[in-house]
């Protein structure tokens, strides 16, 4: 089962790349050169892999893990982008005020502020859902736009740099920045992502809470009638944790990559991470793999734009095709299964 999943994933990636190449060729671009640039930007060198692919995969993995928590309970958090920005704002604010504080304190403090901000950003949708049954799909999505506007205001107002020229913040304190792997731009955030993936793998697999998420997501009526699970509570906590993960990702992006707040800090990480999580079927360890895959595509897209003059958005074609192919495979498999899922044959047939 696991092997076939990997095979389908590889096939989907292959089909995606072929569709991209065909599209580029049809549009008059030099397709082989473009794909070569894509490869160079993603895996072409140690530096490209670590500083391009892996650096971009960090937010995708961390947000993706949070998405998995929510989606496992069938609570659809579409607002990770906004929670990411809320985390980035809090991290910047904290980072600016932590000058002179040693890193062992400053870095966790930034993370804590970021995670708390992400949690608070989803608190309103959670309250609306639990209290009034407002669909979180809509409320979390809408708060993304609010968060983006908030960043825009912050970098031209309260958090604008001292000279008041550019729409961005001052750089955060040196001690609040994450240590790098020497010779690359890869930062400590990758270890955080791997650690969280392992922790979540254990939670999903072994703990009562992991099971309650699953039962709530697959059979909310049965979970509630069993009298063992308070479904509303489980959904609320799943969403709050999901927000905390996305907020943390924002804090790690500021502390490890940008060192400052500015608009368009995220090239849509909060949305791409949904695909990352779904592609991994919400399995934490697989999210690490799909996170790196999508990180590679994002990184390769940048190189394609630089070297072959092709808009980076073209790589969305690959991402889109991968998702479509996997959905198609899943639907086909499910249909094949349901045709067998009929009553037992009568005794005489046995």
């Amino acid at each position, binding site marked *: 089962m696991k092997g076939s999943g990997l095979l389908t994933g590889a096939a989907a990636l292959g089909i995606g790349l072929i569709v991209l190449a065909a599209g580029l060729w049809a549009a008059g671009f030099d397709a082989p050169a473009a794909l070569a640039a894509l490869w160079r930007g993603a895996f072409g060198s140690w530096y490209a892999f670590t500083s391009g692919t892996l650096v971009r995969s960090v937010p995708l993995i961390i947000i993706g893990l949070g998405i998995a928590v929510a989606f496992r309970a069938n609570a659809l958090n579409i607002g990770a982008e906004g929670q990411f920005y809320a985390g980035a704002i809090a991290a910047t604010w904290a980072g600016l005020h932590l000058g002179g504080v040693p890193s062992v304190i400053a870095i966790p403090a930034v993370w804590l502020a970021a995670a708390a901000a992400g949690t608070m950003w989803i608190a309103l949708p959670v309250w609306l859902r639990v209290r009034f049954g407002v669909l979180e799909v809509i409320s979390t999505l809408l708060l993304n736009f609010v968060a983006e506007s908030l960043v825009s205001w912050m970098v031209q107002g309260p958090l604008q740099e001292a000279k008041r020229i550019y729409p961005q913040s001052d750089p955060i304190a040196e001690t609040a920045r994450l240590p790098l792997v020497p010779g690359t731009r890869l930062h400590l955030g990758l270890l955080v992502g791997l650690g969280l993936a392992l922790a979540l793998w254990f939670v999903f697999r072994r*703990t*009562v809470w992991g*099971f309650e998420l699953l*039962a709530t997501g697959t*059979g909310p009526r*049965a979970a509630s*009638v069993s*009298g063992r699970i308070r479904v509303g509570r489980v959904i609320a906590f799943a969403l709050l944790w999901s927000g905390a993960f996305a907020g943390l990702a924002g804090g790690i992006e500021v502390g490890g990559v940008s060192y400052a707040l500015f608009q368009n800090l995220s090239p849509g990480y909060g949305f791409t991470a949904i695909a990352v999580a779904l592609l991994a079927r919400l399995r934490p360890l697989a999210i690490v793999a799909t996170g790196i895959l999508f990180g590679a595509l994002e990184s390769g897209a940048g190189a394609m734009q630089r070297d072959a003059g092709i808009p980076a958005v073209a790589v969305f074609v690959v991402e889109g095709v991968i998702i479509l192919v996997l959905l198609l495979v899943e639907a086909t498999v499910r249909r094949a299964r349901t045709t067998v*899922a009929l009553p037992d*044959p009568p005794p005489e047939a046995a």
Partner: protein
Amino acid sequence: MTVPALELRGIVKRFGPVQALRGADFTLRAGEVHALLGENGAGKSTLMHVAYGLLRPDAGTIVVRGRTVMPRSPRDARRLGIGMVHQHFTSVPALTVAENIALTAGWGLSPRALRERVLALTSRVGLPLDPDARADTLPVAAKQRLEIVKALAADATILLLDEPTAVLAPSEADEVIRVIRGFATEGGSAVLITHKLDEALRAADRVTALRAGRVTLTGVAAEQTPESLARAMIGSDPPSRRGPARRAVTEQPVLVRCEMLDLSREDGRGIAIRGASLAIGAGEIVGVAAVEGNGQRELLRAVGGLVRPLRGRLDVSGPVAFIPEDRTSEGLIGELALTDNVVLGLGRTAPWVHSALIDWNAARQRTAAIIREFGIRTPGPDTPAGVLSGGNQQKVVIARALELLPRVIVAENPTRGLDVLAAADVWDRLAAAAVAGAAVLVHATDLDELLDRVDRTLVVAQGIVTPAPDGAGKTEVGAMMLGARGSLPA
């Protein structure tokens, strides 16, 4: 002899690996009521769905009034004069009775003309219905009447009725039977699918029994007995209806007690149960008889601990096991493995939970043991619950409930959709739990089954809970279900 209204010859139908019909022959003569009997899964509904164009047979011929046909859709079937009353309600909830009838019959009339035509129809067939009532506000019996009127409105001459009396009180069922007989007297032909043997003998001219997709008996109803029909359906002598004898009921200590209990309706619109007082002792099996929608659901769910009372006192000794009516959406999670479903039912107090960690091996072993003890037919504990047959799913639900060692068991229609043997097994398990000291509160729509198996009966009618007199029979309890107050003053 005249040409038969409908003939089905050598019908074969398979669903994947399951052979639902293995060459079934069935003849419906003109002007007769023909009862089609069989256990769940015997192929009754499948056979009628083939005749109605809902399913295409893999082999076999369909002959309507001497002409070989192959209806590809219900529309084709209706054109041939075939109407069907389904087991599940098929009306549009937001439309009125008249609009629903017009929709099925294809009448394009002005509201006033429509209203008059509907009134004329309902009074002619003798099934009173308010043409302006919205379908979703109708009581269950009226909903069932609407289904039948809809089929008749389309000028059907052949009527296929799939368990039309399953959810009705005895006198309401009699009304439906009377209408079907009247339809036959006027020259129509009707197939009555049922699993109630006495109903088949009473209502039908001829009977056909199916077992495992084959016809095991066809004959004149008057020449049959309930025993001969049961043997044809099950293939062996039926299990004893009363089950094994139990020792005398102790009634002490009292495990469920409620006084002047008021409960809200499940949809929040008004009061479901008013001023209910009752007590159930250890070792007692108390039955609840009610027509759907009279408050019995809310009563059972309150005792089961799912909803809080609006007013009054409710004391229930734990642990309480609740067995929901709908095993596929409320009992089990079909996507998840049997082990997961057992884990779901026992929660954090289960022996395999240690400080918030689940020992899945222990849970799997216990599930495997349950599968053996209850004879559940499944490849193993890792099988998704959704692929089991209804009877085996219900065994899982019951086994899981008993695993709690409950002092109180509340069961909603625990034998719904089960065949006779599986149903007998469920009742035996509940009886065994009562012998072990549990108090059991159980509702079943099948009144015969309920009265056979319980120590005493409570009737719920329009939110009022009334004890049925000792030894009250089906007729008496049936009358109380429709609002007569029984032995107590109103």
